[in-house]
């Protein structure tokens, strides 16, 4: 019997010819990631292990992105712990404010996570890198500490659900809509402990940015990883950026899948996930009238250049509704600069939006756009749990950048089609 792409990558890193779902293995990791929330705890645990040095200072990435630029004294102290550790151990991939980005936008952009890699990160959205055909998964701080010492991590080889997307996408439908629709279909624990492999003709036509968005939210279905078979789109993305060797793996035709789920995309509308779970996805036509106080466009899910281009195409020549605060957060400094050069930032500011330096900020209720009691936001972020963006009685509706931008213009959750029509 053949192997899936996930099984092949794990086998290679465990020094094995063959392995099967369910086996417990120890695998070498190509990159270990932490941020200003998770790394300080990992550093504390690392010190307890009693080793003098990290396994490889070039295979650890430390990104201060959650509460940065630091929002208060406590978060500044946390960032300082990470900064000093990075200096002490000569960590190559430490990124200071002004040169950083949201970790899951930044690492692929810099070509330091690559196809065929095994990546663990003390951040649940580490699964984003599966979009490049890597095995990438989120872990906790103690796992990160152990991997910084040994360069290895233990895994239970996951079973895989194969998702096959067929048909042609409707206008304004992209990666975010496909993944919200998929989570709506299988639920927030529909892929618990498993791998989600995304394939099919509709996927082949997706941009690299849209693929990042889909892989990013595999965790929202409980998955261990989300993964795409690398192709010409992947090659085109990594060729100019790769800082090391990479390898394309493909699933064998006779690989074993726990389940195969076929999805006809031609009927899928832009999606909105209602509070308080990402599985509460509905087509835009079934949303009804939902007024919003704030719109957030950004995050590790949708803070890439294509997302900003989509938002700007809707906001061009329009203004944000009087009762709405629109916050746009480019994912990295490079994305910010690209958006500036393309004139997108000017479009946002002319529309009445606040544009921020890269940060996770409001996505996790950290800073830069916290909701008051009873307030409602539509956000291109990844979670709409109770209290996620602020007060426990606030609400978050998840969508892609097109619906978010359209909603900022009208003040209630709106189909992009309606706004573009009005303006035409």
């Amino acid at each position, binding site marked *: 019997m053949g192997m899936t792409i996930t099984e092949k990558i794990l086998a290679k890193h465990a020094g094995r010819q063959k392995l099967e779902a369910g086996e*417990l293995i120890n695998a070498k990791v190509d990159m270990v990631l932490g941020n200003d*929330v*998770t790394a*300080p*705890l990992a550093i*504390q*645990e690392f010190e*307890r*292990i*009693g*080793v003098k040095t990290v396994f490889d200072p070039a295979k650890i990435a430390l990104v201060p992105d*959650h*509460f940065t630029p630091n929002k*208060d004294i*406590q*978060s500044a*102290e*946390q960032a300082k712990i990470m900064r000093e550790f990075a200096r002490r151990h000569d960590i190559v991939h430490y990124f200071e404010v002004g040169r950083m980005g949201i970790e899951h936008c930044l690492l692929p952009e810099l070509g330091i996570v690559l196809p065929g890699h095994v990546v663990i*990160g*003390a*951040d*649940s959205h*580490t699964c984003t890198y599966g979009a490049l055909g890597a095995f990438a998964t*989120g*872990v*906790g*701080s*103690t*796992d990160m*500490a*152990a991997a910084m*010492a*040994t360069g290895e991590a*233990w895994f*239970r080889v996951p079973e895989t659900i194969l998702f096959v997307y067929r048909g042609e996408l409707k206008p304004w439908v992209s990666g975010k809509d496909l993944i919200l629709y998929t989570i709506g279909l299988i639920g*927030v*624990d529909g892929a*618990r*402990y498993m791998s989600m492999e995304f394939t099919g003709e509709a996927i082949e036509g997706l941009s690299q940015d849209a693929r990042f968005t889909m892989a990013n939210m595999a*965790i929202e279905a*409980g998955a*261990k990883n989300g993964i795409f078979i690398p192709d010409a789109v992947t090659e085109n993305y990594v060729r100019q950026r790769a800082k090391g060797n990479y390898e394309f793996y493909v699933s064998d035709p006779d690989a074993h899948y726990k389940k195969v789920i076929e999805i006809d995309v031609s009927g899928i509308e832009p999606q909105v996930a209602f509070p308080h*779970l990402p599985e509460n996805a509905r087509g835009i036509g079934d949303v009804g009238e939902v007024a919003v106080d704030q719109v957030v466009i950004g995050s590790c899910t949708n803070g890439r250049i294509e997302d900003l281009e989509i938002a700007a195409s809707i906001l061009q020549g329009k203004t944000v509704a009087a009762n709405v605060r629109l916050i746009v957060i480019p994912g990295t400094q490079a994305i910010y600069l690209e958006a500036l050069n393309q004139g997108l930032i000017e479009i946002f500011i002319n529309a009445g939006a606040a544009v921020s330096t890269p940060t996770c900020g409001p996505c*996790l*209720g*950290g800073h830069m756009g916290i909701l008051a009691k009873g307030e409602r936001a539509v956000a291109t972020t990844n*979670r709409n*749990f*109770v*209290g*996620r963006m602020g007060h*426990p009685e606030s609400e978050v509706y998840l969508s892609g950048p097109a619906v978010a931008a359209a909603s900022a213009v009208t003040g209630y959750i709106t189909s992009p089609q309606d706004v573009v029509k009005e303006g035409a």
Partner: protein
Amino acid sequence: MNVFQGKTWVFGDDIDTDAIIPARYLTTQDPKILAAHCMEDAEPDFPKKVQPGDIIVGGKNFGCGSSREHAPIAISGAGVSLVIAESFARIFFRNAINIGLPIVECPQAVSGCENGHTLQVDLAAGVVKNLTLNESYEAVAFPDFMQEIIQAGGLIGFVKRQTGGEK
């Protein structure tokens, strides 16, 4: 030490890590500070009323969401002896084992359990007893490898042995 007994706090399905410890408190690692806000958005009285040894009972997918290890640390810091659920989200499961917070998957024990019941859990035997209902259930066993981590007092103790670091 492998037998735990305590009163239950029952929560529903899909209890996420933002409910266990909201991100606004993630600027510290201190278990006491984290414990003071544990579960407060789901059950505001929990941090004030939880007693040492109490047991949290969750539905399916307990601990879904972020990778924050602050979640099991907050629970353990609040004095909770053990979490029992129908199923756990994978990162929470891993984190709990890594920091030495006992967790048990036992769907039968969860259904029918109400707030304030007394549970007795024998981890080694894999048996959960609801003393209030006078019922006994079999828990899902841990693989040997995870039992080794638990015996080493968590992942750091386990890695210390591997790397030959000091005990």
